[in-house]
């Protein structure tokens, strides 16, 4: 591979210089990789630094268990619970829509579709990920919202369900692509064995291939949902942002991301409200971090 001239010091390079070079390359790559770790650490550190001062003015217990979010009220209250349930409701709604749909599409693409269809379908699905979320929000506002109102007879289509639908579409590319990879990683011999035992293609798909790829598919779902729980613009535009505790998917909710996005720009620096928004951000960070860790753990289990 290495041409003799490239060394510059003669026709052959000593073993030591090669070793030194490879050590240098390892060092460069290693330090580049650790940059991302350092950035992650710094983000978390600066979040905490701005979040923790809240608890000097406001008891931590009231922040984590408070039932009301009234940041600019005369009697300010920073209760996380309505925002947490809001994010939860929208995300669970998105999961209920996206998981069956995403896994079904992945099964189709990996097990059923002829090669030509697959080559067309996959880029199309991946293109969904390239649409900016504000465009999704606009579609939610002008198309999905009136549709939901008419179909379900609601007073307003600005609801958790609207957010869930948009987020489900946004999670699909991740779920489909990663699930498909997991399904394709199932050894061909499994399918052959199942078919040889007299199982139909459908039975093979549902009872053999899918269970074999289970942890990879689960990880795909979690990564997809980890992405949407942090999604901001679309939910800000279509969920109505009422800070109430509700588990009615047709009602309006205020998510953690929408709260930070809507309030941060106009909150004076250093006020309790400012620190409370950072606390919301830090909580969100930890939730997303945990979801990604679990997904990563499942993927690694799969690889073993």
């Amino acid at each position, binding site marked *: 591979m290495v041409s003799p001239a490239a060394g510059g010091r003669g026709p052959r390079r000593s073993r030591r210089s090669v070793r030194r070079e490879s050590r240098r390359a390892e060092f460069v790559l290693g330090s580049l990789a650790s940059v991302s770790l350092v950035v992650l650490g710094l983000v978390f550190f600066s979040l905490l630094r701005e979040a923790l001062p809240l608890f000097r003015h406001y008891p931590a217990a009231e922040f984590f268990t408070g039932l009301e979010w009234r940041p*600019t009220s005369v009697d300010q209250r920073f209760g996380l619970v*309505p925002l947490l349930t809001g994010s939860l409701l929208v995300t669970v709604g998105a999961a209920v829509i996206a998981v069956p749909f995403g896994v079904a599409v992945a099964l189709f693409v990996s097990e059923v579709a002829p090669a030509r269809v697959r080559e067309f379908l996959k880029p199309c699905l991946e293109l969904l990920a390239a649409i900016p979320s504000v465009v999704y929000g606009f579609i939610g506002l002008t198309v999905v*919202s009136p549709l939901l*109102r008419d179909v379900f007879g609601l*007073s307003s*289509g*600005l609801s958790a369900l609207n957010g869930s639908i948009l987020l489900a579409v946004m999670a699909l590319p991740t779920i489909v692509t990663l699930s498909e990879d997991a399904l394709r990683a199932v050894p061909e011999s499994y399918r052959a064995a199942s078919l040889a035992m007299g199982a139909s293609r459908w039975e093979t798909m549902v009872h053999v291939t899918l269970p074999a790829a289970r942890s990879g598919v689960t990880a795909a779902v979690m990564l997809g949902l980890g992405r949407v729980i942090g999604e901001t613009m679309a939910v800000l535009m279509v969920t109505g942002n009422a800070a109430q505790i509700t588990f009615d998917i047709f009602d309006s909710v205020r998510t953690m991301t929408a709260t930070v996005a*809507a*309030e941060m720009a*106009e909150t004076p620096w250093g006020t309790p409200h400012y620190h409370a928004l950072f606390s919301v951000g830090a909580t969100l960070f930890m939730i997303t971090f945990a979801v990604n860790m679990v997904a990563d753990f499942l993927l690694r289990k799969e690889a073993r």
Partner: protein
Amino acid sequence: MCTGRTTLGLALVVLLVGGALAGCGPGTAADGEGTGGTLVVRGSDTLVNLSAAWAEAFMEANPGVQVSVSGGGSSTGFAGLIEGSVDLATASREVNDFERQALIDRGTPPVEHVVAVDAVTMIVHPSNPVRELTMSQLADILTGQVTNWADVGGPDLAITIYSRETSSGTYAFVRERVMGNKDYAASARLLPSTYAIIEAVAQDRGGIGYVGMGYVTDAVVALKVAGDEASEPVEATVENVTSGAYPLARNLFIYSAGEPGPLAKAFIEFCTSETGRAITEEMGFVPPAGGR
């Protein structure tokens, strides 16, 4: 090795120069006042369209002058004044104690100029037969005490409240003037813009929302408001706002940090000049009283 060091050096120079330029940013904006070049105006979303119209006419009348106008909310404008990144702040509320103190600490106490009067208009869906409400009925609706239109003389239909976001000056004004500083109902939907509120109310037969008088469109109906049970319901019109009969009117301000510079002063005077007042009315606001 040698080229590597040169690149690094170059990058450093770029960083330093960039940093120095960025540092200059706010300074030049403030200095602009004196030289008569540019004027940076930021603040209230309620005032942003009107300020832009004033700025356009002002630039036409004074060639070579640049006025840049942006919104973001009254608090954004005051934050800009405190940082020194804007020359003038537009506001739909008075400066608060915190902001006033910060400006005094800077050596430039805020100076207030009333440039227009706005009426906050309550809007409902055109199919809703309710055409007038008293202030106490409005308070009951917005705080969530009354949740059905039947309780205020309308059809048996659930009420949905559409409000501006918590940082809006109008949100604070309605809470203070209508609701006596009680909280909005938790079910109130907080929408990010006036446009979104009109859009939502136009789609919701049981909806009620509030917007500035200048923003009402044919897609919604503006309610008459009575100060109390004894008084006549009043429509939000220029005459009723000027006479003080409409209960939901408020002053709109431009603030400067300290006395305004010559260009800023000229701009503020332009806003309440004959031309400025004509623009104010054209944009659906009311010129301030006693300026004529």
